[in-house]
């Protein structure tokens, strides 16, 4: 399964179940990323999320979201509801993230003020997700073989939050992948003891910004390593232009109430 936060933690670099080392630049780096991908990441999840958006003046905007996630074969389904602020409370977001093939993902948004559900057909995924520093692409699956991996030339390993981590460069194999995700390359930091990506630096294809992904709190919940506080900071040069903090509460896996019936338009329109 890939819950919202799980995707964030594990898919940061775009990893999927389909792996092959045929494209690896550095077999050792590849092997590490493969282990990241095959790590147990839980299923049928339920989580309360706080999304804190901080602008460059340090002003905060808080959104509360309840999120559900389930795996259906290789596909991933997710359902999210805004709980706050009041203006958007009840607004729901349902996503069918299809693995492989050329199928565009399906997305529906329910607007309570209009009492209407709209399917969204968006061209690329590089835009901001709900005004946060995460792009929609950050939240969806990317194929591991779409990238080339190598150890960072400057530092092969570093200590992050007291744990040793490998520093690996990930570069899209072609412009199509870069165009879809909006990143021309990224640098990932993989914890050596549990293969969790705990940090990453993204380089958007356009613009002079750099994005810093940082797992500040990592907990083992029901045997699954779960990032419970994740920061994504967008910087121009050294200056922070915007930042998003995601914190997760009431993280639960393997919930019986989280089944495929939940991920329907009818359920979307019913609200949280």
């Amino acid at each position, binding site marked *: 399964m890939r819950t919202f936060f799980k995707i964030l933690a594990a898919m940061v670099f775009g990893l999927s179940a389909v792996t092959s080392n045929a494209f690896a630049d550095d077999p050792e780096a590849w092997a590490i990323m493969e282990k990241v991908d095959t790590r147990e990441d839980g299923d049928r999840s339920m989580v309360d999320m706080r999304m804190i958006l901080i602008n460059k003046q340090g*002003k905060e905007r808080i959104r509360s979201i309840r999120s559900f996630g389930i795996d259906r074969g290789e596909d991933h389904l997710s359902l999210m509801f*805004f709980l706050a602020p009041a*203006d958007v409370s009840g607004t729901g977001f349902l996503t069918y993230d299809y693995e492989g093939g050329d199928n565009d993902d399906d997305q529906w948004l329910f607007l309570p003020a209009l009492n209407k559900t709209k399917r969204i057909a*968006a061209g690329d995924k590089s835009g901001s997700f709900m005004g946060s520093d995460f792009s929609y692409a950050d939240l969806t699956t990317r194929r591991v073989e779409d990238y080339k991996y190598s150890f960072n030339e*400057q530092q092969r390993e570093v200590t992050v939050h007291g744990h040793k981590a490998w520093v690996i460069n990930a570069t899209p194999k072609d412009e199509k992948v870069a165009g879809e995700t909006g990143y021309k390359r990224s640098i990932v930091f993989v914890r050596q003891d549990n293969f969790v990506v705990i940090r990453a630096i993204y380089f958007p294809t356009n613009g002079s910004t750099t994005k810093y992904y940082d797992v500040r709190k990592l907990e083992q919940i029901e045997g699954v390593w779960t990032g419970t506080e994740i920061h994504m*900071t967008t910087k121009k040069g050294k*200056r922070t232009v915007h930042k998003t903090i995601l914190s997760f509460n009431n993280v639960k896996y393997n919930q019986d109430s989280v089944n495929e019936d939940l991920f329907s338009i009818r359920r979307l329109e019913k609200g949280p």
Partner: protein
Amino acid sequence: MTWIHKSFEGWFIRMASLVCRHKYWSLMLMLGLTFALAAQLPKTTIDTRDESFFYKDDPALVSYNNFRDQFGTDDAFIITLRPKKGLDRRFFTFLSLLHHELEAKVPYLDEISSLVNARLVRAEGDTLVVEDLLADLPKSAAGTARILELIDHYPMYDKLLISEDRSLVSIMIRAQAIRELPESELLAGFDDAMIDTRKDSEKYLSNSESTEITKAIKEVLDRYRDEEIEIFFSGTPAVIAELQASIEKDLRTLVPLAALLILTFLALLFRRVSGVVYPTLVVFLSLFSTLGFMALVNIPITMLTQMLPSFLLIVGVGDSVHIMTIFYRIYRKTGDKESAIVDAVGFAGLPVLMTSLTTSCGLMSFVWADVASVAQLGYVAPLGVMLAFLYTVILLPALICIFPVKPGIPVPEHEIPVADRIFSWIARLTTHRPFLVTGISSLLVLVAIFSASSVRFSHNGLTWFPHDSDIRTSTRLMDTVNGGSVMLEVLIDTGKDNSLHDPNVLKSFAKASTEVPKIELHGIRAAKAWSLADVVKETNRALHEDRNEAYTIPESRQLIAQELVLFEASGSDDLEDFTDMSYRTGRMSILAPFEDAILYKDYADELRDYFGQKFPGAEITLTGKIPLFVKLIKNIITSMAKSYVFALLVITILMIFMVGRVKIGLMSMIANVVPIIGVLGLMGLKGIPLDLSTMLVGSLILGLVVDDTIHFLHHFRRAFDQTGELETAVRMTLYSTGRALVITSMVLCGGYFIYLLAYLESNVRFGLLTGCAVLFALAADFFLVPALLTITYRKKAPIGGE
């Protein structure tokens, strides 16, 4: 004064003797200094950005930088296409290919916008489609018709991506505002407290990147030249890049011409190799040192400092000429070149120092300017003048002592009858009819003042280019057909988060979009104004089956908020261009024509009032290029006032000190102010405005022309003491100093009239005015000064004459 003269003379003699005793060391010292400074030359930069005119703490620049930090660059390179056969399938294919090639080839790209990727928010059954207009190229006439229909359906495209008459289609290219961090510093980016300590010059893109972008765009455009489609290139960043290319072009023309003028002048004057080679070496080495110093302290070549090379060559050569003239005279008599150069430096050292000081004072008056690049000129130019002096009194004697110098044939010193007849006539006229001469001068001054009253302040970077230059033609086309090419940005800070969800606030934005283009002042009228309201209206229409009557702001704040979530969820990051994302501050972008900044001022004030009324209680900030230009005009005016007052005050004090009498000192200043009034009158007559380049003329010329008056007064005083007769004293002065003044004025004039061959109109105007000022100053020294001296001295002495 005699005591001061004597002690200075003694000091200069001692110094020159020291140089001659240690000639090799002196040569090594000056060459060492030159190499040390000239080694910095590769670091020389050119800066033609509008930001270069501002101090880093100028509120207008701070506000502009804050805006850029938040939203990125406001202005764009604009490529305009005019398809001769209209918007057909071939054209859309052409546009798409060009768009994608530019996207791939242009460096430092932040955003490229055209009809190809124009945002399309539409309904398709229950699906909301957000896509690019030309995601799929039309394959048939029906497909083309559908595209044209969609273009009509989106008012946002009008005047921005396509002209209202559909004759022009634009591609806008926005560069990154801020440079990326070097790789070595990337890992430190996780530190929350990390502060960007880079200087603005390192943080924001500079001219060299702008030039790279321009070059890349032009290379792509060259490959897309098409008989059926005309291509134009404009936009403020393009103007800046073009300015840099033009400055380089002018430097390549003007510096060799100035060198040629110097060589010719020296050859004619001295008629021997040493008389040409040594002074030329002196001026060029001092110029290299000055430019090296500029590079060392990171002062770039700007619209202002670009005049330095030819200016320093022309002014610097005068120092050598004074000393060499006296040196040759003594050398011919004594045959001892070492004692000749020591005596020459001793004799001419003080006058050369004084003239260097007065010239420096005129230039130093720029130090207090509110225009940063003018102030830079105020630091560097006096240093250049004083370096030229230093090289003259150290390097020149060392060169003469070390290398061979032939005494040569004596320069014929017989009188030139024609010139002397004219000088005699002037002496007679000015001493016998002083009131008539003063009266006519006063009348001319009055006429000049009247004409000068029509001179206005101006800042319009486009008028620096020739009228038929590509950049002016393209900008005119954009302004006439599309209605604008420059951005004015209005930030409306409501003071409260989520205020932009309020239907009334958004309606005010929507209303402003239609009302702002109706405001007209001094012929300036915005082509278009747009904001978040346009996005909401588009989304709302798409949510209501694309019905045009739904192209409105919803009445419920919840619906607005949810529509914005929908828009965000559709993957577009366009909202970042319109708000600060806490929905507290809204941005309204206004496209206006490229006009003179002096006209923008009232227009910007009118807009500020308008938005103040429209959004009571909100904090309104006007930024973007237009408010920068408005502030620049204000800075030009205050800079000019400060510079003129300082130059007049300090040079008057220097004059009084050097002449030794308050009354004569003040009187001589009248003669020195007249050329400046004359220049202002000429500007009025020719319709030349006071702008960044012409504002320099007054203080610069004051520092130069005052030298002639000093020479004139010194000789007059000596001649008057000898003869006790006014006409004889004036005639003697004209015979000796007058001739020298004519020669130096000719060189100065030549040096400035060289600018008439420049490519940039601003340089042409600068050269014309400065050259004329030198002529006016010569006329004032020949006519007005003797007449005023006669009026002052007539009670004490007979007019006399032969």
